[in-house]
């Protein structure tokens, strides 16, 4: 069973003491898809980084499966990301010199030897499921933006994480590609019972998700459910 994600009393300050994030409580039930919206600089990405353990908060707890991610060391946070969180970035962050499958199965490089083949097979399966069947060997450099982001999603899903954290996954795509990817992400999360938390400026994508948070000045000012 996928655990809930719970944030309590989290505070993040900038180096100059400016408050970047102040969340008293945020609970994301397992399997829920959440859109995090707000103006630029509002603290959306900071929230995502805190949830993923990329940015340990200055105060507070981020609880996942009974563990406080914020209290773990770097190795512990990396292990959580490796096993439980799939990350998707706005500008893909793919390795241009690797093939589509090489990128999607990137985690195989640091997976235990016995798990590598299965991980590569799963990555190939995700590529196919995301509409990139037959493109395994294709160089990422020759892929379109939409294809690249799908490869990035396949990479995030290759380890079958229960949580997907996406930072503006559709922002670099044209309207059609953004709509298609948004629909796929929402559907994938729903079908497999994954938790999806996506920072987005795209109302159309946000509308596809179960819940919408609006953040301003690091605080949640609006929280709406379908």
């Amino acid at each position, binding site marked *: 069973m996928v655990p809930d994600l719970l944030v309590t009393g989290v505070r993040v300050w900038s180096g100059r003491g400016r408050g970047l994030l102040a969340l008293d409580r945020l609970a994301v039930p397992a399997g829920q898809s959440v859109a995090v919206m707000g103006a630029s600089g509002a603290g959306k990405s900071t929230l995502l980084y805190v949830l993923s353990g990329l940015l340990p908060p200055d105060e507070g707890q981020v609880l996942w499966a009974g563990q406080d991610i914020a209290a773990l060391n770097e190795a512990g946070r990396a292990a959580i990301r490796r096993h439980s969180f799939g990350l998707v970035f706005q500008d893909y*962050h793919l390795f*241009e*010199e690797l093939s589509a499958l*090489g990128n999607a199965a990137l985690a195989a490089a*640091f997976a235990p030897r016995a798990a590598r083949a299965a991980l590569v097979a799963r990555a190939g399966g995700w590529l196919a499921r995301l509409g990139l069947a037959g493109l395994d060997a294709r160089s990422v450099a020759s892929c379109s933006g939409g294809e690249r982001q799908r490869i990035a999603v396949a990479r995030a899903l290759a380890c079958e994480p229960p949580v997907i954290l996406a930072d503006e996954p559709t922002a670099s795509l044209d309207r059609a590609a953004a709509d298609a990817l948004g629909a796929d992400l929402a559907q994938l999360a729903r079908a497999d019972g994954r938790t999806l938390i996506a920072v987005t400026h795209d109302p159309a994508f946000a509308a596809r998700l179960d819940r919408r948070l609006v953040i301003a000045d690091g605080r949640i000012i609006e929280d709406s459910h379908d």
Partner: protein
Amino acid sequence: MTEMWRALSPGMQDALVALLLVAPGILAGAIVLGGLAPRALVRAMLRRFAWVNALFVLLIAVSVGVGTGLVAQERGLRQGSARAAEKFDLIVAAPGSELTAMLAAVYLQPSDMALLSGTQYAEIAGAEGVDFAAPIAFGDSYQGAPVVGTTAQFVTHMAGPLAEGPLFPARGEARGGAYAPLAPGASFSPAHGEADAAEHDAHDGVSYRVTGRMAPTGSPWDRAILVPVEGVWAVHGLPDGHAPGDARIGPPFLSDQIPGTPAVLVRAREVWGNYALKSQFTRKDMMAFFPGTVLAQLHGLMREIRSAMSLLAVLSQVLVTLSVLIGLMILVRLIARSLAVLRAIGAPGRFVFAVVWSYCAVLIAAGAGMGLGLGWGAARLLSAVITSRTDVLVTARLGWNEVHLVAGFISLTLLLALLPAWAAIRRRLLVDLRG
């Protein structure tokens, strides 16, 4: 343990030293890479910054190549000069500089030397224990190659049987050194003097025909044209060592018919006899010396310079190593974003460490390997240049010294590459991820 070590052949000892030198680097690699598979990612990073990586490899290669090439060259020069002198057992000359006499007799360098008289030559040639005593006569040249007069015995002693043709059958016949500018069958008229001072028409009317060629000796004698010593004397209007009308070639010579010789190349019947002869002819009116000893003294004098060169080589390797370290630190900044992506998707720090270390190791190994190749090429090129300018056959090859130097360099830099790898996983993840 010591006994076991001594029982090993020198080659085995050198191989083991090389292995021991490179072992720390290999051990570090085994520990860093154990159970991980960073190859595809390292290849991707190498391809991403291919030109920068290539430049970095080239810089390592050049520094390693220069270091190994110079060490090999210095050794090759020493060995070449020693090899050129090894057939010259004992030289007897008029009192003066042994070095000048050696340069003239062994390396055929133009020089002004006092002459030994015919009586002195006869005394030397007739001394007990002398196998042969070859007078030499030089001062003429043809197309830059010295024309040297001597005896068949000495030529045979130095170069063995001729590679082509019989040896000194007649006065007007010459033998080319292995690389002399004349092929068998060619005729020539020698110039008086050598190099720029040569008078090309001084011996007009005198002609030699080349009827044979010596086997290579690795000495300046390979470029020389050898003629019977009688011919050189006669060409200069001097008595030719034999009674008038006697057309014989070679010893014995009549002491009152010898016009003088700058040096006599002596070989004793027994090796120990050379020492007795040296002692016998080291006196006020002549000097006797072993060219090998003079050369050893010369090399001994250069030992200090060699030590300084070695120190400089080590210092330069240290500087290169530090430069490599700084370069690797800079290169790691180039790949920082890729590394941040890896860390963001959950790659363990150990894996990121392994990626960076492997990336550095590939550059270091490629640079060092290419450096050995460059060193080999540079040594060959320099050897060819020195051989063509001095006629001393210098065959600088990369030896165990250079292998040890490179093995030590690789090992040290592989260990130092742990630093940029460590620095890479200490970088601020989010800062690098945002670029």
